[in-house]
């Protein structure tokens, strides 16, 4: 008995050490993934497979939130004997929770067929998701996608994903504050905004309970800061994403412009309070998206919505939002996977879910417009429609070559906007680290 005890214990330990030395794709014990559905042959299933019994595995953040219940229903119309199994992983900050879930699944050798992500470039580069250029380019919605949207789904000319639920930030403006400062219209350029800021400061405007009023706020993470960078002529990366340009003279000028806003007291220091100041009526111009409209209405802010003001470069580009849906390389049901994704960007789906719009043409759809008028988001949506024509993919939010770059960049931004550090020195140092990391990652 005693001996058994000791043997069992050492056997476990030994087993642990040996299996940990990873075989195939694992870092641990291999779980045998049950093969899903019929044909194990090559990639696509035989032509007339619509009556096959199979399970399509989808990994996303939330069943209802992603409209997957609607999509499943529509999918079953085409494939009546199919099951759709949805694995959900929440979302988390920047999608981390879902990304972690996908990583754990992949490392255990389990693969879904369809996955939701904003790290498509990273996964594509690692060879985990498929090149679906030919299929997607033949879809009718493809030509209607804006450059920014295509930016999200393409790497080196190859399409790896389908953009979904595109959104972006645009300008919310507090009509009351602007009126108090003597302005009747929303600012059209950043110079206008600076003028408004000066006026507010001079008049020392305050809210009813004595709180200071700011011209704008930099809360909102990369959503906000990317815009300011691009509007002032700065750039994050070279076009081939091999080097960062955050230390270029134009970029530095842009960051300086932002820092001046803080130094002059025109914008508060970022402290994670997000929209609290806006909802409390302390911010004149707030760059945000659809999601904040209900709270704005609830807080009784007399708000107007418009596309972003133009910067000194003549641009008013914002980062393109939304996510992309990709097909995993290990999927054995690629045709069906693509069909599922096509459903997600179909007109029928978008009309049914009413919030997850990808097709920009649908912004003119009277049915959708009616729902937006009913819930008070119409004006915002129209502003967004215009803004969506001027979007761009922002590398430094989800860098696929060197993930640490995001942290380094954000820390540098914080040093500048919160700590008041010297812009040139800080950005030069960050750029150095990022470039070094990218170089190392490209070589391995």
């Amino acid at each position, binding site marked *: 008995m005693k001996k058994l005890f000791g043997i069992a214990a050492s056997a476990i330990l030994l087993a642990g050490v040996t299996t940990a030395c990873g075989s195939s794709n694992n870092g641990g*014990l291999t779980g045998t993934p049950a093969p899903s559905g019929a044909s194990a042959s090559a990639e696509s299933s035989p032509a007339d497979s619509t009556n096959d019994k199979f399970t399509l595995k989808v990994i996303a953040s939330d069943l209802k939130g992603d409209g997957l219940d609607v999509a499943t229903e529509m999918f079953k119309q085409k494939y009546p004997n199919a099951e759709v199994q949805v694995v959900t992983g929440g979302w988390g900050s920047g999608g981390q929770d879902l990304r972690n879930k996908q990583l754990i699944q992949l490392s255990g050798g389990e693969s879904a067929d369809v996955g939701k992500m904003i790290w498509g470039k990273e996964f594509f580069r690692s060879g985990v998701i498929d090149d679906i250029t030919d299929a997607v380019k033949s879809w009718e919605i493809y030509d209607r996608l804006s450059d920014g949207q295509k930016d999200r789904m393409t790497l080196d000319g190859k399409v790896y994903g389908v953009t979904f639920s595109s959104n972006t930030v645009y300008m919310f403006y507090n009509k009351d504050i602007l009126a108090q400062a003597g302005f009747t219209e929303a600012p059209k350029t950043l110079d206008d905004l600076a003028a408004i800021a000066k006026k507010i400061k001079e008049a020392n405007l305050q809210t009813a309970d004595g709180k200071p009023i700011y011209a704008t706020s930099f809360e909102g993470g990369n959503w906000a800061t990317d815009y300011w960078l691009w509007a002032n002529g700065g750039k994050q990366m070279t076009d081939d994403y091999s080097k960062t340009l955050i230390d270029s003279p134009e970029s530095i000028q842009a960051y300086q412009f932002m820092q001046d806003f803080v130094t002059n007291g025109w914008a508060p220091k970022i402290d994670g309070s997000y929209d609290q100041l806006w909802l409390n009526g302390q911010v004149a111009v707030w760059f945000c998206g659809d999601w904040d409209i209900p709270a704005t209405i609830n807080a009784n802010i007399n708000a107007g919505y418009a596309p972003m003001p133009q910067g000194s470069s003549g641009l008013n580009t914002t980062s393109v939002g939304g996510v992309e849906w990709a097909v995993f390389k290990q999927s054995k049901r690629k045709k069906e996977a693509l069909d599922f994704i096509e459903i997600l960007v179909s007109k029928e789906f978008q009309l049914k879910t009413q919030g997850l719009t990808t097709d920009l043409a649908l912004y003119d759809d009277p049915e959708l417009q009616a729902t937006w008028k009913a819930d008070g988001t119409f004006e915002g949506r129209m502003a967004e429609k215009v803004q969506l024509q001027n979007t761009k993919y922002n590398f430094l939010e989800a860098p696929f070559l060197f993930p640490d770059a995001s942290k380094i960049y954000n820390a540098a931004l914080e040093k500048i906007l919160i700590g008041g550090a010297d812009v040139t020195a800080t950005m030069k140092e960050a750029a150095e680290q990022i470039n070094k990391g990218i170089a190392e990652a490209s070589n391995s």
Partner: protein
Amino acid sequence: MNTQKASRSWLDFVYLLGMAAVAFVLLSPVIWLVSASFQGPGEIFKVPFRWIPQHISLENYKNAWEVGQIGRALWNSVSVSVLMLVFHLFLNAFSGYVIVKYSFKFKSLMIVFVLATLMLPQEITFLPVYNLVKSFGLVDSHLGLAIPFFYSGFGVFLMMQFARAIPDEILESARIDGCSEYRIFFRIALPLLKSAIAALGIMAFSFIWNEYAWANIVVLSDQMRTLPISLTFLAKSSDNSVKISALIPASVIAMTPVMLLFFIFQRQFVESVASSGVKG
């Protein structure tokens, strides 16, 4: 004499008031949560904050219940907690008792073996354990959620301390009377360990109820979500909204069962910690 008594109870009362104020200050974040849960998102951040809400609105609770699917999450949390507690209390108590009350070869090694795990941050075990749980076919299940917490170094350690206090004479006399070892544990030791189990119980319950890291890894479907996961879901969705107006009532709902349980069993818990060998 009367005036002395009167002045003493007057002092007692003042003392109570003072301590009540201290308790209120310490507890204020909790009170704030409850109060804010009945107010709209615009009102929560109004300064000065109104401790007694102007309009009580159950809208937030309804929202949290529906959007956050809190009902389902509550059920999952309760199931997992009960499951974990049953195993945890029994297994740790039995192990702690046996370690302390019996002598056997490798006893000191055993003690070190178990207590060394106290030094390990359990989070770093989760990735390998996930593969383990997966090979048992327990992913996305209540059992899978509970199994990494069935035993714990802390649980065994605590039980060892409490079991030490059981007088050996009682066990010996039971043996002489012809009781089997198992009978001795179930009939004699276990009842004596009741307050210890209450103490460990509330700590373990409080832990598993709020446990997030492991749950996040092993839960794969909406239906299996526990409360902490639902809370996080409400905090951040992919459309970037921070549904704080739903997050707060959800937090209150998540907090309430533990609070209730504690207030009911408070006395047992405190007494058990008091009567233990915590002194060493």
